[in-house]
């Protein structure tokens, strides 16, 4: 609008703000905002107590000894044994995330393309493991993968192998178990974002001259990226802090960051050191999220788009 009209308009608006019932209507607006705010208060309080307070406490502990403030807990983390643990934690997390993508993407694609009835059934099968106890699933893998387990027995009975394969109590077994646990967390967001892709996009691509393979890579995959990003974030972050499966299937040979935390607390009763480990893990996780967000956009990261 022309600049000259501005003052007149403001005056005009000011006139309305002082108009009939204006004060009462504004009061109602404010009362409504207050009410909505106070309705959210219990939830905010709960989150504050349950989630935020322990984190603050963790930070506090990690900088303290009996004598006062210190950085000793963090200095200790530079010791090679911790660095090696950190390395293998990341190595395992990358590997499990990668394998989850390779297995999860085709699976999610099949479910997304299937007719509704079959898709519902397949989704049920994907969800089924989540409803079973984590421990039960880990022990089940132990039974399957151990030296005289089902898989080794079959393979040698069928003559494929001479001696039993070392499938468990090592990196391999841990990876297998973790992929199994993590797969649903990859498939579900992927499926949701694939399902949201309007089939007309694929038709349009074909109509414009794209072969099915071109249409898949140039249209479908880019449009499914939000789901993929959400899946990667969930799986990777869960892997970084994973404890149960590596502890059971790693047989003490796979040292994860989370296991160092547990050792510091239960063997040495050293809450300070454990807290420092926790803070480092938290900061690194946030750092990775931030990096991913920079690369693919924060709105996509949460699967919001």
């Amino acid at each position, binding site marked *: 609008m022309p600049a000259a009209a501005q003052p007149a308009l403001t005056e005009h608006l000011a006139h309305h703000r002082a108009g009939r019932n204006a004060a009462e209507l504004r009061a109602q607006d404010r009362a409504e905002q207050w009410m909505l705010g106070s309705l959210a208060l219990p939830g905010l309080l709960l989150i504050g107590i349950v989630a935020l307070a322990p984190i603050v406490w963790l930070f506090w502990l990690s900088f303290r000894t009996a004598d006062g403030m210190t950085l000793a807990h963090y200095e200790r983390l530079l010791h090679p044994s911790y660095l090696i643990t950190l390395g293998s934690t990341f190595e395992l997390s990358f590997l499990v995330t990668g394998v989850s993508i390779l297995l999860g993407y085709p699976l999610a694609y099949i479910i997304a393309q299937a007719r509704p009835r079959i898709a519902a059934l397949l989704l049920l099968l994907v969800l089924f493991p989540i409803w079973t106890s984590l421990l039960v699933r880990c022990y089940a893998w132990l039974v399957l993968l151990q030296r005289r387990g089902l898989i080794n027995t079959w393979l040698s009975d069928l003559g494929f192998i001479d001696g039993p394969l070392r499938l468990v109590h090592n990196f391999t077994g841990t990876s297998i178990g973790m992929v199994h646990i993590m797969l649903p967390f990859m498939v579900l967001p992927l499926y949701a974002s694939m399902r949201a892709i309007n089939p007309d*996009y694929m038709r349009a691509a074909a109509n414009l*001259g794209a072969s099915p393979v071109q249409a898949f890579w140039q249209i479908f995959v880019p*449009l499914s990226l939000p789901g993929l990003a959400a899946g990667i974030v969930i799986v990777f972050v869960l892997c970084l802090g994973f404890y149960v499966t590596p502890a059971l299937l790693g047989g003490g040979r796979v040292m994860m960051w989370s296991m160092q935390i547990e050792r510091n607390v239960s063997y040495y009763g050293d809450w300070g050191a454990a807290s420092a480990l926790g803070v480092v893990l938290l900061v690194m996780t946030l750092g990775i999220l931030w990096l991913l967000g920079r690369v693919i956009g924060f709105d996509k990261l949460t699967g919001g788009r």
Partner: protein
Amino acid sequence: MKSTTISLPISIGDVTKTYGRTAALDNVNLEIASGEFITLLGPSGSGKTTLLMVLAGFIRPNSGQIRFGDREVTLLPPHKRDVGMVFQNYALFPHMTVAGNLAYPLKLRGIARAEVEERVARALDMVQLVGFGERQVDQLSGGQRQRVALARAIIFEPRILLMDEPLSALDKKLREQMQIEVRHLHQRLGMTTVYVTHDQREALTMSDRIAVINHGRFRQIDKPQDLYERPNDRFIAEFIGESHFLPVEVRGGAAYLGERAMRLAEPPRHQAPAQFLVLRPEKLKIVEATEAADLNVFSGQVKEFVYQGESSLLYVALADGQPIAIRQPAGNAQRAPLPGSPITLGLAPADTIIVPSEEP
């Protein structure tokens, strides 16, 4: 894009597509001339979109033959058909910019970068979106998206253009403006265009010919004016334009409304005894006398007066209770007739249309 665009005739022969026990297309035949703008018009579920999808290659018919010019395309997958298509929801790729969308079909055809850029610029100019190339699709208004979709469909110079209710998401004013724009574009580029709509007014506005389809069959294929003035049967007359119907009896080349012989310009085209007189509101006029030598007259009572701006509708109940309506251009001086007052309407013999209930 250029005026050198060549168009191709389309030949649809005996195409049938069934879903379960219902036939979406029931042995359909249609010859579309090169450069023609033809509209497939029908209610929802009539099979019009199915036919368009068969032409594009997205739906495989059970049997039949599709030819584009000399080339049989019945078995060809969609990406090898080289036809442009505008989708109902536009289907613009949300992960590409406007220019990216326009360039996509050109890149797929291996066209050099410099030429791609030049053609994208020209296409943007043609749909009056210069400077919008770097916008994201979700930053465009409905009308702008429509234009981009249109530009993307013709940028690779297809000789056939398919349009699936492309204007249905726009508001009325914009829709009418785009109808004219699409029509002009077609006149300039001259590609054979198959347009699907359920809006009879849109069909009348845009088409060289209209093919009315229902239950998977063509009911009438004609020029807009012929379709309106000479409908084949009651379905067509009901679907195109407003009409009321009075049952008439046809015998010996004449039509009788009750005992009264109608004044006709030509004898009824069909011989079935039970037919209908089609009364278009705008063809009727108010007459003073209850008898007129050169008109068919209908006497009744005013029921309701509806003011609609540029014209007004007057609902009238005939003596036997049959409802009819008359449309008059609205004027300042016009007074609303009182409900219940007697009124006599006249219809010229040349405007008298007699149709059977279904074409035999």
